């Protein structure tokens, strides 16, 4: 579970993504962190036999999802937003595994791999364009200057927000739908909120980066230019599946190509868990659920639009920083919690570096003073006894004679006792 960076072991992922190049960040996002999801999915039978474990997985997953989403709200580093977004989406996948939506989890894993890879490469392109600046407060108005990056990143954002018919919609909706149908209404509810939050923070990212007035450094501004082909072509190549993948392998819903491939894998788990994936009915409960999630996604986009501005045709709107400030002022605690990532880094710093360091130092003291001290103490003590005994050797012959006489007395006494037995 640590591999997939789930709460409470999630701290490492954003830190790892901050430093390296976008390419390695992509690797993190698309492959490595997925290993944990894969592991749980692969051992599905084991988990299916342990409903409590499933419940734990679901709870941790959905909690990671909402926690990370809330942190992504306020981060100003473009890659950090994406990193927490990754965490949040991985949380979805875990929640899906936890509620028994095995196929949906893998489905989301795949779609997410594409659009999150796209987003990371986009962010790399953006950072490259503004001369290695990662802080979104020093961006803005980049849409026209780097159009390909802009366009592909918009596609990625729409996809992750879960707007049909892009890839993210199908997989995310399937997770939420199955959570609801399998009786995990609370997972569905939280997941729905997270979906809305996702839309908000992604379009906040778009707004801060591409739209509105430029806040780029004056010296850098003239030099902003689109990335070279080697960077843009992968972007376009990744944008295509981000749009189409859902339709291709996930349509019709819950009965697409992917479901066919994966059915044998999870057969036994489904049989054990007793959760047969219910048939999809657009005009039944599923339709309502789709409607709900799409609505929430759109709502999220609208909120972001109202606050951070949009520069699309028809929907042009200037960003409203004062309103953002008003909102943050109204909920200062939440704002600070989000900004400080719910203080997890500090908590771990306290736990592992400070307290852990103290414990380690104390143990070392114990090792030197108590354990080794005992050993050396035995040695020194033995020598000291020897030194004491040495004093008996006074060098005076009369003392020696007395000693021998006393020894003789003891000897005679003991022989008398022994022979009298």
């Amino acid at each position: 579970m640590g591999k997939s960076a789930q709460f409470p072991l999630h701290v490492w992922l954003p830190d790892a993504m901050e430093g390296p190049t976008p390419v390695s960040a992509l690797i993190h996002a698309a492959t490595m962190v997925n290993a944990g999801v894969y592991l749980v999915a692969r051992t599905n039978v084991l988990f299916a036999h342990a409903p409590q474990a499933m419940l734990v997985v679901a709870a941790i997953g959905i909690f990671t999802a909402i926690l990370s989403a809330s942190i992504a709200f306020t981060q100003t580093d473009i890659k950090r937003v994406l990193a927490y977004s990754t965490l949040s989406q991985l949380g979805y996948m875990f929640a899906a595994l936890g509620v028994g939506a095995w196929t949906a989890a893998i489905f989301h894993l795949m779609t997410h791999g594409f659009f999150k890879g796209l987003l990371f490469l986009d962010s790399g392109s953006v950072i490259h364009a503004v001369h290695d600046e990662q802080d979104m407060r020093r961006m803005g108005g980049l849409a026209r200057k780097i159009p390909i990056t802009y366009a592909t990143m918009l596609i990625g954002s729409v996809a992750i927000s879960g707007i049909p018919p892009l890839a993210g919609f199908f997989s995310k909706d399937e997770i939420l739908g199955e959570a609801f149908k399998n009786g995990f209404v609370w997972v569905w509810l939280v997941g729905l909120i997270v979906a809305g939050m996702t839309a908000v923070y992604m379009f906040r990212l778009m707004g801060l980066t591409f739209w509105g007035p430029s806040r780029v450094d004056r010296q850098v501004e003239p030099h902003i230019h689109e990335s070279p082909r080697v960077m843009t072509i992968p972007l376009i190549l990744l944008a295509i599946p981000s749009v189409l993948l859902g339709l291709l392998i996930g349509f019709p819903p819950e009965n697409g190509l992917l479901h066919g491939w994966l059915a044998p894998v999870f057969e036994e788990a489904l049989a054990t868990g007793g959760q047969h994936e219910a048939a999809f009915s657009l005009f039944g409960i599923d339709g309502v659920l789709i409607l709900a999630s799409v609505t929430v996604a759109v709502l999220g986009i609208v909120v972001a639009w109202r606050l951070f501005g949009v520069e699309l045709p028809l929907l042009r709107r200037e960003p409203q920083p004062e309103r953002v400030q008003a909102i943050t002022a109204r909920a200062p605690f939440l704002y600070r919690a989000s900004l400080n990532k719910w203080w997890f880094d500090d908590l771990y710093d306290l736990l592992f570096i400070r307290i852990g360091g103290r414990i380690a130092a104390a143990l070392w003291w114990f090792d030197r003073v108590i354990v080794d001290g005992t050993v050396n103490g035995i040695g020194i003590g033995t020598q000291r006894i020897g030194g004491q005994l040495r004093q008996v050797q006074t060098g005076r012959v009369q003392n020696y004679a007395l000693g021998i006489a006393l020894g003789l007395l003891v000897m005679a006494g003991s022989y008398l006792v022994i022979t009298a037995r």
Partner: protein
Amino acid sequence: MPGGILTLITFVPLVGAIVIAFLPRERPDLARFTALGTALLAWVFSLYMLIGFLPTHPGFQFVEVADWIPAFGIQYKLGADGLSVVLVVLTTTLTWISILASFGPIKERVKEYMISFLILEVGMVGVFLALDLFLFYIFWEVVLVPMYLIIGIWGGPNRIYATIKFVLYTLVGSLLMLVAILATGFAFQDAHGGQWAGAFDFEQLRAFAGTTGFANGLQLGAFLAFFLAFAIKIPMFPFHTWLPDAHVEAPTAGSVILAGILLKLGGYGFIRFALPLFPDAAKTYAPAIIVLSLIALIYGAIVALVQPDLKKLVAYSSVSHMGFVTLGIFIFQQQGLYGAILQMVNHGLITGALFLLVGVIYERTHDRTIAKMSGLSGRTPVYAATFGFFMLASVGLPGLSGFVGEFLVLVGSFAYAPAVAGVATITMIFTAGYLLWMYQRLFFGEMSAFLHEIGSHLTDMRPVETLTLVPLATLVVVFGLFPGLVLHLVDGTVTSVLNSLGRATAINLLFWQ
């Protein structure tokens, strides 16, 4: 396979040592190359033995018997099963590597040093091959003296304290073991109508232990004495404090052998002698030993975290890693035993290599304080990469050999008690913690002022140094990918030990091979 191969492996180094004694003092290179040649010869013989060994054949092979002290049925009896073969080859390999690694650092009294090292090899190989308890004890003690000299003469500033501590600590354990060996032999003699024949013959003693069995009181006492001797050697918490001192003061090659082979003598002793001869006592004491192993695991790792001295850090990491060995042995599970044996081999390779690497930097800076180093990777990239490789192997990165042994022990301990496996797993986090942190402090960041002062002496690895590490790295990768190479050799050992404990060996480990 001609007879006498085991005697050949054991005593070839002694012949080399005698030859070196007659070489002129003014020409140290002659002594160096004679020693290296002898060690290589012993190595070749040991490989020859490895090739001739039949893993499917149960029991001991290449057995050589000769009466030695017939009045007490004491024999010169050597023989090898898979465990012996594996550890003997490890010994001969590490010995020539260590001798090669000593070419540069050892400039004083080269003759005496090489003689000590070769006699040390005689003792180590002898311990792994002796099938007579009395003979085993003699080889066990023979190991002691050269190591005492190696630390005491060619060691660091506090070497005398360290070496005397090493000797006294070991002697307390081993002398009590002698009492236990004699008592065991006598119990056998007593049960056979006063006939001494076979009283110290391991195979006969094991057969006796498997049928009639030794009296309970003797088992409890003798096992305790054996345990003390082996626990000190391994070393187990709380008998470990000689190890950091000895490691810090020993010359590099001494540390390599100390960590690579000497610590394995304890694990070998448990598997070969203590368990089969005193199975009931082993079962009685096992829970306590498991607890001690767990303490050693975590305690060693945590204390390693705060070590300022590089060698001490690796020393405490040994305490922690060897905890896996004792844990694997005393859970009495098949996987655990396989894992413990593999872990012994891996720890020998990896920690041996780590000490060689510490020696590399020490030779250039004459310092091992972690705080004084940083940013080494810029100046010495090959060194950084090699160090990183073995560091990750020590962490237990899958694909490298360190992983498989620990994993097998974890699987075994899960079957024993999930809580035990849980505690052991936590250790792996700490292990990653202290090793990665150490690596980060040494190699990343800006180069420290101290290293700047070293200036041009701070060179990357020399060819000889690389030459000593390449075989180890190769084996780490090979055993990481194909642990079956080792595991299938010790099938017979594991089966017979578990049989003597009355444990089934149903689990098929074929998928490792």
